[in-house]
């Protein structure tokens, strides 16, 4: 029986098979890439806020401590967005007639809260607790980046689960020796961080990796 297809068509069929495999592989990789991209995670994207509040000015220039506004960061799961009253503590005197602070004054006058746009958003099934991280010596800038350099806040990290797990598997790298350094935006790990971290983990009774990576540590 004569062959229906010429031998040369074998190339076409091989090419089709391999390119199909390649395309599928590429598609998967692309999907993974997109999911991790700043487009999806909103990493490095600044948001427009009702008042263009500058952390660079307040933290970097004025040197106000994180805890002046985020008062519950050491005691509670949430760091806390300050009430309008906190803004007015200073701005009833400073720049008290600046136009761009009108939303603050209006909120204080009318009792209607300011609606800030959330920058660091975790999924609803994630239960993150600020206080335990801060108390064990994980600094603000480890997760939030150098806030004192940000005129408008953006998310410095991906906040993906793999990013959380990186640290939960190796918390020693993030532990700061001096607990006051937790709020130091310019903290850099010393050269012997590995050694210090191990010691600190022991001193501060850190849980083992197995315990820190339990599902129920963050999901419930």
């Amino acid at each position, binding site marked *: 029986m004569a062959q229906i297809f010429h031998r040369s068509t074998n190339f076409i069929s091989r090419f089709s098979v391999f390119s199909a495999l390649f395309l599928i592989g590429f598609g998967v990789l692309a999907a993974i890439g997109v999911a991790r991209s700043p487009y999806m995670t909103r990493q490095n994207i600044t948001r427009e806020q009702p008042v263009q509040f500058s952390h660079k000015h307040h933290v970097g220039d004025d040197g106000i401590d994180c805890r002046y506004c985020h008062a519950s960061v050491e005691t509670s799961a949430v760091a806390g967005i300050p009430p309008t009253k906190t803004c007015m503590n200073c701005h009833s005197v400073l720049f008290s007639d600046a136009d761009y602070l009108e939303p603050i004054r209006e909120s204080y006058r009318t009792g209607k809260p300011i609606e800030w746009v959330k920058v660091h958003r975790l999924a*609803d099934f994630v239960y993150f607790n600020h206080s335990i991280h801060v108390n064990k010596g994980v600094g603000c800038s480890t997760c939030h980046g150098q806030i004192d350099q940000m005129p408008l806040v953006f998310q410095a990290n991906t906040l993906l689960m793999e990013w959380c797990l990186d640290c939960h598997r190796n918390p020693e790298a993030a532990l700061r020796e001096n607990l006051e350094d937790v709020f130091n935006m310019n903290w850099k790990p010393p050269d012997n961080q590995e050694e210090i971290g191990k010691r600190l983990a022991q001193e501060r*009774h850190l849980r083992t990796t197995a315990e820190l990576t339990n599902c129920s540590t963050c999901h419930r």
Partner: protein
Amino acid sequence: MRGQTQEEQDKKPVARQHAEEPSAESCAGPPPLDLAAVRARLQSKTSTQYWRTLEELAGDPAFEELLHREFPRQAPSEWDDSVDRRDFLKLMAASLAFAGLSGCGRMPEQHIVPYVKQPDGLTLGKPQFYATAVPFGADAIGLLVESHEGRPTKVEGNPDHPSSLGATDAFAQASILNLYDPDRAQTVTKIGEIQTWSEFLDAAQSLAAVFRATQGEGLRFLTGIVNSPSLAAQIQTILTLYPKAKWHQWEPALGDGAREGAKLAFGTYVNTVYRPENAEVILSLDSDFLASGPGHVRYMREFYGRRKLPSWKINPLADQLPPEMRMNRLYVVEPTPSVTGATADHHLPLRSAEIAQFARALAAKLGLGGSGKVSPAAEKWLDVVVQDLRKYPKRTLVVAGEQQSAEVHALAHAVNAALGNVGTTLYYTEPVEAQPVNHLESFRQLCADMAAGKVDTLVILGVNPVYTAPHDFDFTAKLKKVANTIHVSSHFDETSQYCLWHVAESHYLETWGDARAFDGTVSVVQPLIAPLYLTHSAREVLAAFTDKPGVSDYDVVRDRLKAANPAADFDKFWRKTLNDGVISGTAFAPFSVSLKFTPASLPPAKESSPDELEFLFRPDPCIYDGRFANNGWLQELPKPVTKLTWDNAALVSPKTAEKLSLTHSIPSRGGEHGQVLANVVDIALSGSKVTAAAWILPGQAEGVVVLPLGYGRTKAGYTGTNKGFNAYVVRTSSALWSASAPASAITKTGDDYPLACTQYHFNMEGRHILVDATLEDYRKNPNFAHEHEEAPPKELSLYKGEAEFPYARDKWAMAIDLNSCNGCNACVIACQAENNIPVVGKEQVRRGREMHWIRIDRYYKAQSPTNDPSSYNQSLDNPETFFQPVPCQQCENAPCEQVCPVGATVHSAEGLNDMTYNRCIGTRYCSNNCPYKVRRFNFLRFQDWETPQFKLMRNPEVTVRSRGVMEKCTYCVQRINIARIESEKKNEPIADGAIVTACEQACPSQAIVFGNANDPNSRVAKLRAQQRNYSIMPELNTRPRTTYLAAVRNPNPELEKA
């Protein structure tokens, strides 16, 4: 709850249709239950057996097959839907594609809305607890209510409050749902038209002006029991202002027996406070004092405190029990099994009328005179009880039931006095109610005056008389004659529709109030949230009739308290009161009363014919007198003994059922494990008729038919309307609690009605699950709980061994003492509130899809210790009853974990079987592989995501699950995490007792203990070390962390012999 079941019903009209026509021919299930066969089968047994349902006992192979199959043969497994397989697959493919696409989207933007001025003392993200109290009948349970940024989410008991001691009951737990009930009335209305509050105030004041001229001629107030000093003071003020006005009271589900009995015995109304902790022998005359009535939460703690047993080493030299091994003993005589009766050491079913005779005979045997006629068997029983009561002078207790007559109460007082119990196991105080009156007479008077046209204005506060009035009063017709009617209630209900004005009433968490507990202790009821709607309190409505209209309830309560406590620094006193939740020293002092009663002076008792049926009216154990009808949690809560949900049924004893040839059958369709088709009967009583489903209840006295009140509401709201049958329809004032009628009063209609009963779900097939012994046996054989145990070597593990899970730091475990559990259901509702567990509706419960993370199994025991076959009949007509709460067993070798294809349920380093909802794809393999059947699957989206009120109610610490996700008990992992974080911040180990699970916290009898099994000093480790400690099905080597302490009963050997 609106929306929670509505959505699902709307989507499936076909499914609903099926529910309405449960035609017998479409059911391919086992044949109807044959009680004669059950008896025959029982007689052929020679060993102890535990059973949960009559079908199980009958051992019908078709029923067994039904249980074996997750989805019985020919059952359309998921949906009774018209969509065929092909269309279904097409739809699924499309939705999968879309689901994939929707997963690609970015998370939507969210806003953060901070306070403008943050309240003092509030830490964002941390709950606050406020002390308050929930008034209920002649009692109030002190509470600490959890508030998340101003939203009350969970109710806990106040440890400092005498009637709570830190625990709560199911009603208190469920009251949070009443607050957020979307069906609540939301504004003032006049003939259904929305009005403003000031319009109402104007109308009330113009009425008041008229009445001032006439001294209140024709002005009437109708309330339930009032135990609030401030409300009572307000009413008294009004009665002095209008001397001819009258105050009537009507509490439909609480009898006058206790009040009138006290009057008969002492010549005055008194309040009786029991001290079960001091009693060695307790006899209950139809009293459910461990589950209802004033003080029951405390009584449970005291009573079961005397039943906690230590470990025990056999000492052949000692033949007396050491003091710590002594248990109290409870005898119960009652017509229908209650929670108290179910856990009694000896239970004697007697008709209600016979109980009066029994009480007379008891008094006679104690030499108090009089006489009572009881059956020879009951007399034998009574002789033993009397002997036992005499053994412990001053340390026994006789309790009469709320629904029993004045005569029985007076006899109980006389017997307690004769036994010298007054002062040790009970004491008398002045009444807790502000104005004790005979409610029936008070209400009768009101009705008579209404009929005579003497009532011009009727103010009804909080009660629903159109629904609850005895039908011979014909209240509705009389109400229509009254010119001005004002109804204050939380819902626009049956009464509201006939009233001129309706004022939406605030929930107790929205308004200031005060209330007395069962011992007289005053608590201030503190609101946690401003009224959600335009609602007002009864105090504000009453104020409109005083010379201070418009006064706030805060001022009313505060002024009353100031007048009663002229402390130097009242502000300080007030703050302390609010902080503590109780005012110390306000409990009534015991006062001495002298008995002015001899049993011989009683008129001869009415003879009741044994051929007649006795119909009893009882409040429903879950929705009470109907006031909780619109509470989805309580509707879906399986009733403690019958395990029915969403319906009431006429309860009949097995023998009566045989006589009336009543039966029920189990249809097999669509995995409907919870569906029972019960015979429908017509009940004709005193000129009225009601149609009810009949339910056969082992342990009920022969010839007794119980008609639970509270169902058949016609205007309760979305959840409560048209559920069950209305027993008030056949209730008359002359037979308020029991009516006698010939057997012809009950006739079979030939129809069947589908009931949803959870006791047919998740059958454990008679394995070694519940273990019990008598105290005597425990003494002889302390190791009884492990006798039949077959424990494989520990090395036989599904894991790589201990190396993988050393549980080095914390090892969470729970121990449940079956000796202390009476199935009161407080834990079930506490769990539901804490863990955002949805309500699924009757339709879904019938398919075995209820979502409760903790279920309470009720077991009956069939035993013939003497191998005398006749005692097996006893097993059917008066079985020993046990309760076993079953949450997730948190196995160390968990079968569920091994089969999950996506790793959604994994082992934690502390030994929890973590459930990760966002990984779960709903294969349900885990549930299939769970030997304890504790996993619950969201077959549909049971949660209501739209109704805004429910968003406020949810616990923010727990994920709200969606459709297609498996869930189960987590040991309240949110509470574990919070306690762990707090202790780690202090660099300390987690203290024993720092983590309290929701079920443990609610449990009045402290039957549930949670803690770290690694800490030898923890309470749970000590319990686990006891000999009574056993795990369910140890032969599977699952090594559960939830273990049980075997039940030990303390029967009287004399009675065992007899």
